[in-house]
């Protein structure tokens, strides 16, 4: 069974078998899940959509094709939008760099203990977010060991601190989304036939070349999935900025949170949400194109 990537001609036979005129199969498979999404997501989004085009003061809002809400949303909060993209982007990159070796190790060296390690990866979630963050606040406290050491080493200024900084917010986001990056990476890596790597090395490729020419490309579906599962929710995050940041770190998620709960300006909150969602989707599309979507979302 040779060959790294299957090509169209190889699989035509298989495709023929699976794509017989049973056109109903995909729809049957989709039905339950999509029905769930339609009822419990699309319908609420419909309400939200109407609200984004409304205006008024709580609790009376009247629908009126108020497109100005969107214009205002984009112009008033540009800083926060851009910042959210930056923070989420950096957090995703760091998460990728930290998670890849871990996922690789679990996939190739984990042996029978693979599942145990996967469990360990999500274990921090058993202790609620608040308690984990309080622990970080203890570790990174201004007069704690970590900060003192960094000040000593000159990395932090004499009055430097780790908490209430962009670094803290990004670190918080990264930390909380690590499992979202590790698991998809693992899923893709574990599938790689080790013999392919051996074959490459037999053909005089160095370890590094074998990695970049064989392993990495084959793990791209996992990378793609991990990046999506991390970046998308991170862009809308608010809690890390609230607990670990100053007003200069607030993200668009914080704005939406306060517009919705405190100010109760639902039209603004709704339109901000849609702008955020559209922006994230656009970025995802660009990213997918640059990697080559076909290879990542549809089996050859």
């Amino acid at each position, binding site marked *: 069974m040779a060959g790294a990537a299957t090509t169209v001609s190889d699989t035509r036979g298989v495709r023929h078998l699976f794509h017989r005129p049973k056109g109903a199969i995909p729809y049957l498979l989709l039905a339950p899940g999509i029905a769930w999404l339609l009822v419990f997501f699309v319908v609420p989004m419909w309400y939200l959509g109407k609200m984004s085009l409304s205006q008024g003061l709580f609790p009376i809002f009247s629908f009126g094709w108020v497109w100005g809400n969107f214009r205002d949303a984009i112009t008033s909060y540009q800083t926060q939008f851009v910042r959210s993209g930056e923070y989420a982007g950096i957090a995703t990159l760091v998460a990728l760099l930290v998670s890849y070796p871990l996922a690789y190790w679990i996939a190739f060296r984990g042996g*029978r203990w693979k599942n145990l390690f996967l469990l360990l990866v999500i274990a921090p979630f058993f202790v609620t977010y608040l*308690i984990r963050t309080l622990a970080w606040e203890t570790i990174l406290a201004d007069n704690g060991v970590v900060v003192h050491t960094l000040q000593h080493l000159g990395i932090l200024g004499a009055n430097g601190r780790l908490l209430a900084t962009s670094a803290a917010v990004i670190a918080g986001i990264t930390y909380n989304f690590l499992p979202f990056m590790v698991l998809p990476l693992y899923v893709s890596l574990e599938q790689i036939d080790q013999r392919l790597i051996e074959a490459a090395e037999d053909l005089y490729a160095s370890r590094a070349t074998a990695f970049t020419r064989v392993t990495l490309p084959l793990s791209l579906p996992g990378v793609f999935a991990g990046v999506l599962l991390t970046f998308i929710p991170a862009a809308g995050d608010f809690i890390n900025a609230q607990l670990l940041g100053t007003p200069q770190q607030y993200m668009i998620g914080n704005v939406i949170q306060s517009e919705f709960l405190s100010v109760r300006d639902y039209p603004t909150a709704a339109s901000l949400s849609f702008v955020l969602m559209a922006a994230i989707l656009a970025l995802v599309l660009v990213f997918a194109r640059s990697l080559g979507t076909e290879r990542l979302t549809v089996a050859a």
Partner: protein
Amino acid sequence: MLSVYAAIALAYLFLPIVVVVLFSFNNPKGRFNYTWEGFTFKNWENPFGFPGLGGALRVSIEIALLSSFFATVLGTLIALALVRYRFRGSGTTNLLIFVPMTTPEVVMGASLLTLFVNWRIPQGFGTILIAHILFNISYVVVTVRARLVGFDRHLEEAAMDLGANEWVTFLKVTLPLIMPGILAAALLAFALSIDDFVITYFNAGSTITFPLFVWGAARVATPPQINVIGTGIFIIAVTGMLGTILLQNYRSRKGALAV
């Protein structure tokens, strides 16, 4: 070298957990567990001493198990359809999978509540479950899809050449090979569910989950028992997993010897 990197990553992941476990032995005089005040076993002797903590935990675990199960089933089916088949509406379906992940939690939670209120659905365990399955589906689809995309179709072709029909091939060849992906997705869904706060808050009615309890109590107290419970679940889960692995090892060794 790789092992070093992996160890560092794992250490980073567990650094705050070490502090959490440590503080479960803390002995504060006040109601806050913020600074180290002395060692004690009494929190471990009385982990459920806080009324409501045990109940909230049970609710959270039940919901996490149920929602991860259903979301995994629904999501895997969708992933299979998207990856294996070309059909009209695949683009829209893709969109429908991504959009829930992009929605800010406060907005998703509140809009879902609006739905329940308009349709006169009382909020409680059921609505929390509905909400959790909802947001978990997307994550399952994306995770399982990563596995399916890299799946070697030749294996299925070979099985069918040997006389297996589609259904048998799926059960005996495909499913076992994508199972790691499905399990990983289920784990992710479980984690998402057990830690969810915002969406749950809006749709919980008067039911209290573990995160709701902790966030709620945090205004006036952070009892060390919360740390005890968190550590406890972790220990139970790891022990359970270890047990299963050791059992498998034992069985396979027996089997090998028998041959």
